[in-house]
């Protein structure tokens, strides 16, 4: 079942074609890898899907409904979540607070129940806190609840980002370089985590440069270069694709 469909997506900045006539699908329950050399436009694709950029042409369909051009928070409420490459966290809040904030979509308290502190309010607050604790446990940060996000080591910050993203229980999760800056051990742990998340029913699109992670996790891979789709297929097919190898000139050893 096609969860996300990207049709002839194009985005130009000034004179520069960042993304050009991009076409691909994401099937429910799969992990799709989005790879390509630096500057290929991968993060731009994420920004287009999540509504941060408005495409110049093309359509994005989620559950066969057109979500092109919707505001980012609306797209999030449709069930698409993402992480960012840079340290995009609530830096001066604790890890737990970060995840509680992430529960924004899940909590249904309105102004009146907040002002009157109805039982519903207390109930929702308690549920959010419990859920956040559980999520931190799930990503392996159970002892770190009260540590400020800015004081967490890089690997833990990456996990925190994921905890925040999945707190709204999205159907589609966009991960932007989840293992960047990690050593092999941390990479393995993160891979296991991503596998767990998929096992829980979430569909994932993953931007990554680390070929081990890509090959190890992804069911299918889309390769883009200069904003255009270069190839699409299973990891094995991509590994053997001549054009892809050429695009990554000098990086053939990554495919070993």
């Amino acid at each position: 079942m096609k969860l996300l469909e990207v049709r002839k997506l194009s985005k130009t900045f000034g004179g520069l074609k960042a993304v050009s006539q991009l076409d691909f699908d994401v099937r429910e329950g799969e992990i799709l890898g989005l790879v390509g050399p630096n500057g290929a436009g991968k993060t731009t694709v994420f920004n287009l899907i999540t509504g941060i950029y408005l495409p110049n042409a093309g359509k994005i369909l989620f559950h066969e409904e057109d979500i092109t051009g919707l505001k980012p928070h609306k797209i999030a409420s449709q069930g698409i979540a993402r992480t960012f490459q840079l340290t995009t966290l609530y830096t001066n809040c604790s890890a737990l607070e970060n995840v509680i904030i992430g529960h924004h979509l899940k909590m249904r308290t309105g102004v009146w129940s907040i002002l009157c502190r109805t039982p519903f309010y207390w109930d929702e607050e308690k549920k959010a806190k419990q859920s956040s604790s559980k999520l931190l446990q799930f990503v392996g940060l159970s002892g770190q609840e009260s540590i400020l996000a800015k004081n967490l080591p890089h690997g833990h910050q990456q996990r925190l980002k994921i905890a925040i993203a999945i707190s709204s229980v999205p159907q589609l999760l966009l991960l932007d370089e989840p293992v960047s800056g990690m050593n092999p051990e941390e990479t393995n742990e993160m891979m296991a985590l991503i596998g767990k998340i998929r096992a829980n029913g979430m569909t994932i699109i993953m931007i990554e440069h680390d070929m081990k992670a890509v090959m190890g996790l992804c069911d299918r891979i889309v390769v883009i270069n200069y904003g255009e789709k270069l190839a699409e297929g299973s990891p094995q097919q991509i590994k053997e694709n001549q054009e892809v190898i050429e695009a990554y000139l000098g990086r053939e050893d990554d495919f070993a």
Partner: protein
Amino acid sequence: MNKKGFYLICLYVFLLSIPLLVKDAYHIHILIMTMFHIILALGLNFVMNTAQVPLCQAAFVGVGAYTSTLLVMRLNFSFWLSFPIAGVLTGVLGIIVGLPTLRIKGIYFAMATFALGEIIRLLFIGWVGLFGGANGITSIPPPDPIPIPLMGAIEFQTKVPYYYFTLLVLTVCIIIVYRLTHSRIGRASTAIRESDLLAQSTGIDIMGCKVFTFAVNSFFAGIVGAIYAHYFHFIGPQDFTFWQSVEYLVFIVMGGSGTLGGPIIGSIFLTFLPEFLRMAVEFQVVIYGLALILVLLFMPQGIMGLLVKVSSRFAKSA
């Protein structure tokens, strides 16, 4: 009941009994002014949590003041009706103004609200027929007496009834701000301030949140304006200038933005301070300005931040 609750009740009993202990009308006046300032500072701080700094506070206070005055004096409304209407109207103005302006970045938003504040003030001066021009409006009546069964009525002839009424309004405002802050809405504000990119991606409607907080702030300004008008019995455009907006900003910066206690402490400190520095206005203003500069340079967390640091040091050594 817990410790916090107990101390709060003690504080309240004390505050309620002040008019019995303090007989000098001028001192009561200082307390009333302090309460006005606290309400305004709380509202302003609430907006500033979304990383926007409005510079049109005083003009909104003016909108509330003129609204209530005109409703009472031209349309024979009772204060008890004009007062909430003034607040709501100013809140709606906040929404109308906020929608186009809150999408623009911090420093430009500040400038836009600065321009708006001046436009409003110039309207007060220019539209003589409605607002009385530079001379303002005089002889504004006090609130209607509140009838109490079997005991007569509470008349607003001395400052004391104003004190209790303002205290009541202040309490409600504090509760509102406290509850909103410790909720999904308050957290959304924090999220927007810390990282609006991430906030959007987790479903937070940035504009919605900003407009809401700005509307709450405007509402607070409006109701303070309404009470102000019927307390001073006279209002004029010179009461609602840009420099008063700056003053409210100084309260927050001095007290410490981002906390609940900060604006309260800042307002109390800076409203009482001029009373102890019995000197000409110009000197007071210089001290205000210097205080702002020094605090921003050396104590960006304000007095509240200082207190927190000191108390945590005590806790460590204990």
